[in-house]
C-alpha cells in the first residue's frame, strides 16, 4: 500500500475535463514531479491533493486514510505556492511559526522548531525581516521553511522555482532536493520545466491534456518516451517518418525517404507507418564515407559545454549535439557523415503528428 494514492481522480469544470482519470501512487519519502505543458491540469491535481479543489470523481488516500472529501485545513499537508503566498504583515519568524501556532504547539517548543527550520534553509539571520524586505530566492526559502516546520506527511510544491532567475533556479533545485533528502518528506512537485523535474525527482509523471501519459524514472522517460508527444516535450529530438520494410522478431528495417535504417523494436509488421525518434546527442559526426547518411552543416551553435549542429541531408534538417571535448568543430558548410547505433532509435507506431513545434517553449 503506497503512502499517497490517487485513484481515478477526475475534475470537470462544466464541459472541460481539467483532470481526467488520474491514478498515481507515491511511496513514503519519494520525490515525484508532475510534468506537463501549461494548462494540462498539474495545478488542479495538486490542489485536489491539498483539498482546495474537490474532485468530481475518484479517491485520494493518505497513509491508508481516505481524505478525498477532507477539509484542506484538516489535512496537515505542507504547501509551497507558486506565488509563495507569504503573510506580508508578519515577520519571517512569525510566518514560519504560524503553522505551529495553528497546531497548538506550546510556545516554548515553537521557537526552537522555527529556528531549526530557518537554519535548514539558511535564513536564520533574516528571522526579523518582513517578506517584502527579502529577495525572491529568500522568499522561496521562507515558503519552504514554513511548509516543512509543521512536519507534514506530504510536501506539495507548485512550480516552486518558476519565479526565480535561471541561475538561482538551478542552485535552488539542488538545494531543494538536498533539503528533501535530509528531512525525508514525501514530496509532490508540479513543474513545466523538464530540466527541473528530471534533475531532482525520483519519478516523473508526464501529463498531457489532463491525463497521465507516462510515469517513470527521469532517465527512462528521456530514453524511452512512450509517446511521440513525450519525446517532443522532453528534451530535443529528431522525429523521422518512415515505413517498415522488413521485420524479424526483435528487429526491423525502416525505410526513411529511401534510406534503410535498422531499428531494435519487436512486433512491427511490414508496411506499417512509424515515426523514428533519435536524440541529437545520440547522433555522431564522422567522415562522409563512414556514415549511415551524409549531410551538410547548415548551422552550428556553441552552447559552452556542447556544440549544436543543424545538418541538412536527405531526411531534412537533423539536430546533432556533440560534447565540446576541445577538438576542432565541423565547419559551417562542410559535408559530414552521420552515424548512430540502432539501439538508440525509438520507434513510435503511427504517423507523425501535424504540428511539430507544440512544446518548443518548454524544451529548456
Amino acid at each position: 500500500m503506497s503512502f499517497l494514492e490517487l485513484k481515478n481522480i477526475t475534475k470537470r469544470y462544466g464541459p472541460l475535463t481539467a483532470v481526467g482519470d488520474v491514478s498515481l501512487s507515491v511511496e513514503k519519502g519519494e520525490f515525484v514531479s508532475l510534468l506537463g505543458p501549461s494548462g494540462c491540469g498539474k495545478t488542479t491535481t495538486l490542489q485536489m491533493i491539498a483539498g482546495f479543489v474537490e474532485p468530481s470523481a475518484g479517491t485520494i488516500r493518505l497513509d491508508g486514510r481516505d481524505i478525498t472529501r477532507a477539509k484542506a485545513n484538516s489535512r496537515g499537508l505542507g504547501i509551497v505556492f507558486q506565488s509563495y503566498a507569504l503573510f506580508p504583515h508578519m515577520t519571517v519568524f512569525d510566518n514560519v511559526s504560524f503553522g505551529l501556532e495553528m497546531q497548538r504547539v506550546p510556545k516554548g517548543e515553537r521557537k526552537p522548531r522555527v529556528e531549526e527550520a530557518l537554519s535548514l534553509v539558511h535564513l536564520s539571520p533574516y528571522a526579523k525581516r518582513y517578506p517584502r524586505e527579502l529577495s525572491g530566492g529568500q522568499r522561496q526559502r521562507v515558503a519552504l521553511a514554513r511548509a516543512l516546520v509543521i512536519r507534514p506527511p506530504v510536501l506539495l510544491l507548485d512550480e516552486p522555482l518558476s519565479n526565480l532567475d535561471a541561475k538561482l533556479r538551478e542552485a535552488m533545485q539542488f538545494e531543494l532536493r538536498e533539503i528533501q533528502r535530509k528531512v525525508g518528506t514525501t514530496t509532490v512537485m508540479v513543474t513545466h520545466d523538464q530540466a527541473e523535474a528530471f534533475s531532482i525527482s525520483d519519478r516523473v509523471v508526464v501529463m498531457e491534456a489532463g491525463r497521465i501519459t507516462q510515469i517513470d524514472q527521469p532517465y527512462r522517460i528521456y530514453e524511452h518516451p512512450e509517446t511521440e508527444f513525450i519525446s517532443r516535450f522532453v528534451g530535443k529530438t529528431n522525429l523521422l517518418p518512415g515505413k517498415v520494410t522488413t521485420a524479424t522478431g526483435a528487429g526491423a528495417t525502416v525505410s526513411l525517404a529511401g534510406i534503410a535504417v535498422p531499428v531494435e523494436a519487436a512486433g512491427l509488421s511490414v508496411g506499417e507507418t512509424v515515426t523514428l525518434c533519435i536524440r541529437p546527442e545520440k547522433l555522431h559526426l564522422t567522415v562522409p564515407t563512414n556514415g549511415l547518411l551524409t549531410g551538410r552543416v547548415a548551422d552550428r551553435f556553441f552552447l559552452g559545454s556542447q556544440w549544436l549542429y543543424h545538418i541538412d541531408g536527405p531526411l531534412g534538417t537533423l539536430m546533432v549535439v556533440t560534447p565540446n571535448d576541445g577538438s576542432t568543430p565541423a565547419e559551417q558548410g562542410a559535408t559530414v557523415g552521420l552515424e548512430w547505433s540502432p539501439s538508440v532509435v525509438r520507434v513510435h507506431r503511427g504517423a507523425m503528428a501535424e504540428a511539430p513545434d507544440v512544446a518548443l517553449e518548454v524544451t529548456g
Partner: protein
Amino acid sequence: MSATVPEAAPAASGDETPERRFPTAPLFLSAPAVLLFAALVLIPLFLTALLSFNQFDYATGRTGGFTLEHYLSVLTDEYYLEIFLRTFRISALATVICVVIGVPEAYILSRMSNPWRSIFLLVILAPLLVSVVVRAFGWSMLLGPEGPVNAALMAFGIGRMRLLYTEGTVIVALVHVMLPFMVIPVWTSLQKLDPAVEQAALSFGASRGTAIVRVVAPQILPGILSGSLIVFGLSASAFAIPGLLGGRRLKMVATVVYDQYLSDLNWPMGAAVAALLLIANLIVMLTYHRLVEGHYRRRLG
C-alpha cells in the same frame, strides 16, 4: 525611501534640452488641477477663514474688523459643544457600523463568481446615483408617523414609535448613504490580495475565521482605514441627512452652520463654526491615520 530613488535616467533619445523640459512638463500638466483646486477649494476656504474673524452686530450686520469673539463663544458655549460632541459621536458610530457591515460585504462580494459579482457591485453602487436628498426623504417617509414602519409596528400591537428626529435614525440613514464609500476601498484592497495567501493559512490548519482575522484582515487594513476616513469625514460634515431626518431637534454641525448663515444671518459665526469643524475633523482623521497606519507601515509598505 527617497534616498534610494535612482537618479533620473539620462534621456536616451536625441533630445537637445532634456534638463529644461523635465521640470516644466509636470508643472504644466498639473496646472489645470492646481488652478481648479485653488479656485474652488483654497480661495473659498481662505475667505471663510477671513470671514470668521469679522465682527458682527445684529443691528448692523457684518462690520469687518478683527475679533476672536466667535471662536470664543463657540468654544465656551455648552450648546455648541454638545452639537460638536453629538456630531462626532454620530459620525463615529456610523463609521463603526459601516466597517462592521461594509467589510464583510466587500469580502463576500470578492468571493462571488462573475455574473453575480457584477450584479451585486451594481446594487451596492446604485444608491450613489440617487440624490442624498431623495434618499433622506425616502427614509423620512418610511419612518414617519404614518409610514409603513409605524403601520407595521401598530399591526403587531407594539404601538406607534417616534422614529424621526432621533440619533438612531440619523445614524441608520448615514450608514445607508456612506456604505459604498466603505465597500469600494475595501473591495479594492481585496482585489489586490493574493488568494493563495488565505489558502496558505488554511493549509496550516487555520479555520476560516482564523484565516480571515489573522491573514486577510491585516492586509486589507489600508482599505478599511481609507474607507473609515472617508465615511467619518463625510458624516461629520453631512448636511442633508441631519437636516431632513434630525429636524430642528437634532442638530449637527453642518446644520448649525446653515442656521447661522441663513436664519441668524450671522455669517462670521457660521464661518467660525465651519472652520472649527474643519479643524476638529482634521485632528480626528490625522490621529486615526497615525494610529492605524503607523502600526502597519513597515509591514505592508
